Each structure stands twice: as structure tokens, then as C-alpha cells.
């Protein structure tokens, strides 16, 4: 089964509002990553947070990680129509060695209305 589960599956907001997406996972991790996918395209890496970090920022993105609850959230502030995309969390797993293997969640589809 998938390591990461995301919530909500779909989110629709107005431009300028904030969007929050959540991810839960099951096993111990080295890090958690968030990716974005525009319709019909490949995934693009957004941000990586290590297991010993609690919060990380990148531009309008804010990611939190709570390893005790095995959960993470992605906040996009002041959303724009161009943020419309699907967002995926991905976890590696401790013991996965150097393979770089990740397990992806099913994603949250975000629609930002102009």
C-alpha cells in the first residue's frame, strides 16, 4: 500500500487565499519531499524536509513535519491561478540505502480560481 496518504484529495480556492495540504505516512523516514505536477506533465520537486527538521520555507511554500504523528503539511500562501496543479508527498524509508527509492502519495488536486 502507499506510504503516503494525502488529504484532501481535491481542493478549490480563490486566488489570494492560502492552500493547505496534508500527508500522512506509516514508517520511519529519512526525509519527506513535496512535488508538483501540472496537467499532462512530469513531477517537479518543490521542497525536501529532513526527519530532524520541523519546518521549512521556500518562497510562498511552508512545509511542516511532525514525526511523532507521522504527518506533514504543505501550505501555499497567497495562491495564484498558476498554482493550479496536483501536489504529491513522497517519503523514503530508513534502511532503503542509496537507492533513492521513494513512495508517493496519491496527491491533492488544487484548483485556484482567478
Amino acid at each position, binding site marked *: 500500500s502507499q506510504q503516503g496518504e494525502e488529504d484532501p484529495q481535491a481542493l478549490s480556492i480563490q486566488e489570494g487565499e492560502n492552500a493547505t495540504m496534508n500527508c500522512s505516512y506509516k514508517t520511519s523516514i529519512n526525509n519527506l519531499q513535496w512535488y508538483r505536477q501540472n496537467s499532462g506533465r*512530469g513531477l517537479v520537486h518543490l521542497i525536501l524536509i529532513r526527519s530532524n527538521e520541523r519546518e521549512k520555507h521556500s518562497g510562498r511554500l511552508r512545509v511542516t513535519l511532525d514525526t511523532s504523528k507521522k504527518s506533514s503539511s504543505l501550505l501555499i500562501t497567497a495562491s495564484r491561478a498558476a498554482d493550479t496543479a496536483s501536489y504529491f508527498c513522497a517519503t523514503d524509508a530508513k534502511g532503503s540505502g542509496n*537507492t533513492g527509492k521513494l513512495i508517493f502519495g496519491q496527491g491533492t488536486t488544487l484548483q485556484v480560481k482567478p
Partner: protein
Amino acid sequence: DVKVTQSSRYLVKRTGEKVFLECVQDMDHENMFWYRQDPGLGLRLIYFSYDVKMKEKGDIPEGYSVSREKKERFSLILESASTNQTSMYLCASSKPTQGSQPQHFGDGTRLSIL
């Protein structure tokens, strides 16, 4: 910037055909991955490779094989295509560290098996 190139954006094949999907990366990454993406199921790992001529099964390897003869190229082979292999196929690459590197994706091949 890392570039991962998949040979075809769209491909239509017939049941029973042998299908080759090609992926090339230009950043000398050791790790390469093949996923399929289906609505409601997220990304599922088919095969991955952590070095030339090395390969490991992912979560759904049945009906597929792979080839990694050169470091930059990772091929996915559908031995005898079936309609349930109609899907979006995504290739990715990454550096070989302890799961702490992002994966870089191609734009995907949307494969239809008729």
C-alpha cells in the same frame, strides 16, 4: 538543470506488441526509476536501477522488464502489451545518497494499448 527526456509524449500500440519506452538523463545520475500513474492510484514504481546493468523490481513489475546498458539510458519494455497497461509512464533519476535527494522527472509517455 537536470534534464530527463522520454522518447515519446504519446504512443499508441496494439495488444500483443512488444513496446519500448526510452528515457535518457544528462546529469550522470546513478539511480533511475520507472513509474506508472493511473487516476486514483498515484505513482506506482515498476522497476528501478541503481547502476549500469543493475535493476530491482518495484511494486508492480509483472508484465514489464527493463534494460540499463548505459548510465544515461533506462528502457522500459512491455513484453506483450495488454490493454491494462494503458497508462501514463514516468521516468525519473536521482543521485545515490541516503534517500535525501530529489528525483527529477521526464514529462511522461501517455501509452494507449488498443
